[in-house]
């Protein structure tokens, strides 16, 4: 209580204070939008006085004495004190030290850490997330109830069967490349869904399927997906685990390894579906040089032109994510696809409203307020 009263007084005086020593101003405040227990300090130093060796951050202990909590460089800066008790007022001062001797302490400032239930800078994003998720879930529900949902033709996905059939006729293998990213990448997951379909076709036709992977977890998942597909087709004996291999995590090491496999094994059909970077063209051009029919798909915008140039079919952006619904025709998946389109429509309307509001806002204030509201909605901290 003894320490609390003077500290409270200091809080009431000011959270920002200025002094005449090396540390000119100091500001203490609760770190906003965190799980509590943190106070942030910001200070400025005098450009005119001799520069000390360091600045020591001191916090007032419950007994009233100052205790060392950290050392910082003698420049303008900031420091976060953590592991504090929420609701308790803490006082700080900064002491410059030169050759082992403390100088004149900076002003004393106080603040109290607090905890937040909701991140104030993400409320708009929460609203948008809820709206988009609701739309998608409603459409999934509609799909489940049997509503007829039309999905346009995607040429690249229609060609899957032809490509595998061609490989069978030519007696050459099918190669499936699931991108270079791990299973935490949503494109890799979408790719695994298509792999299941391709594996089923390969099992039906009796073609061998090669899946070189760049990540060990992707290899493991691919083995399970392909094995399941062979089981469902009634051909578990044809499944060859050693055809689904891990090469290396290295981007171009992987490209070199896959290129070598293409040149040696000469697959008749190559699927490049997932996340690709600069290795995309190296893979696609080598595939073209061995005369394979190639179906590619990625949401990596900068790689799409390379695939279009070198492959027979290319799934562009979200078509990759639509593959699962398109190939299975499962009502709930189709529903989510329609929901995705409806959500896109909402975003398009918001964009048009925002652009019109921001433009008209120069002359008509209410329009400006609409644009301001939309900015709040889409702003994230």
């Amino acid at each position: 209580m003894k320490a609390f009263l003077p500290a409270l007084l200091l809080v009431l005086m000011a959270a920002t204070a200025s002094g005449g020593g090396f540390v000119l101003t100091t500001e203490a405040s609760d770190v906003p939008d965190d799980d509590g227990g943190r106070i942030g300090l910001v200070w400025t130093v005098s450009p005119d006085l001799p520069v000390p060796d360091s600045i020591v951050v001191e916090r007032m202990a419950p007994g009233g004495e100052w205790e060392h909590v950290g050392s910082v460089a003698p420049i303008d800066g900031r420091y976060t004190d953590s592991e504090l008790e929420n609701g308790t007022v803490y006082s700080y001062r900064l002491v410059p030290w030169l050759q082992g001797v403390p100088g004149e302490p900076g002003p004393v400032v106080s603040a109290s850490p607090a905890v937040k239930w909701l991140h104030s800078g993400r409320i708009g994003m929460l609203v948008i997330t809820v709206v988009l998720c609701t739309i998608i879930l409603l459409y999934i529900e509609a799909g489940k109830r049997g509503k007829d949902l039309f999905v346009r033709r995607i040429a690249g996905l229609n060609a899957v069967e032809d490509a595998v059939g061609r490989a069978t006729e030519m007696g050459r293998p099918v190669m499936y490349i699931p991108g270079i990213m791990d299973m935490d990448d949503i494109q890799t997951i979408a790719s695994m869904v298509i792999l299941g379909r391709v594996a089923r076709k390969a099992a039906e036709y009796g073609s061998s399927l090669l899946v070189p992977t760049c990540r060990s977890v992707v290899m493991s998942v691919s083995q399970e997906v392909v094995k399941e597909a062979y089981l469902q087709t009634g051909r578990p004996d044809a499944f060859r685990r050693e055809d689904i291999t891990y090469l290396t995590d290295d981007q171009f090491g992987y490209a070199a390894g896959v290129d070598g496999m293409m040149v040696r094994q000469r697959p008749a059909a190559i699927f490049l579906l997932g996340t690709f970077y600069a290795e995309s063209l190296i893979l696609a051009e080598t595939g073209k040089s061995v005369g394979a029919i190639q179906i590619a798909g990625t949401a990596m915008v900068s790689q799409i032109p390379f695939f279009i140039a070198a492959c027979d079919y290319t799934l562009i952006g979200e078509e990759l994510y639509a593959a699962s619904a398109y190939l299975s025709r499962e009502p709930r998946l189709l529903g989510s696809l329609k929901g995705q389109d409806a959500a896109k429509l909402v975003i398009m309307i918001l964009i048009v409203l925002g652009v019109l509001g921001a433009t008209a806002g120069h002359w008509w204030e209410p329009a400006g307020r609409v644009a301001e509201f939309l900015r709040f909605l889409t702003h994230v901290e």
Partner: protein
Amino acid sequence: MRLFLPLVITFICGIVMILHFFIPHRPISTIGDGLTDWYMIVASAAIFLGAANLVQVHVHRINTKARNWKYSPVVLIGFIAMMATGLLWGVEETLPFDYMFQTMIVPMGATMFSLLAFFVASAAFRAFRASNWRATLLLASAFIVMLGRVPIGGMIWKQIPIISEWMMQVPNMAGQRAVMIGAALGVVATSLRMIFGIERSYLGGAD
């Protein structure tokens, strides 16, 4: 049951991580931090999975004298050499691991990347054809951007770099954003399908 447990784990983790973004309060914050720590541990452990598979596959190829088996000893020797030098002497500069990294991995990696120049030239020769007005427009844009990205473009005409930068910042950006917004929504929809267990083919189960 084989699918039930992974689906429950996906649902719980997915919901917690979404809440973690919006709610900084305990216990969501601590559970969210805990899950990220778990992810890093699992991801680290996966490195051993990859290494074990690599060794297993290549030893099998050597044993069975499979097609092109002669490449497999090269892989195994490289793998063991890098691992042994790193474990025995560490990875600091001037040590054997760093020496092999700088003198072998660096030039080999750069060689692979440089192949891109040749493939770009070959693909551009084959694909950039003025077959219709849109392709012609694309061709003209490509010329301007290619010239604008090198000093010789500015030497030909000072406006070329400026026009090139404008093309990157306006038409290119508009197109990129359109695809990006569509793809982002695809991510949202796919994530929801996974969190709610509608999409399960990635687990090797029936779709």
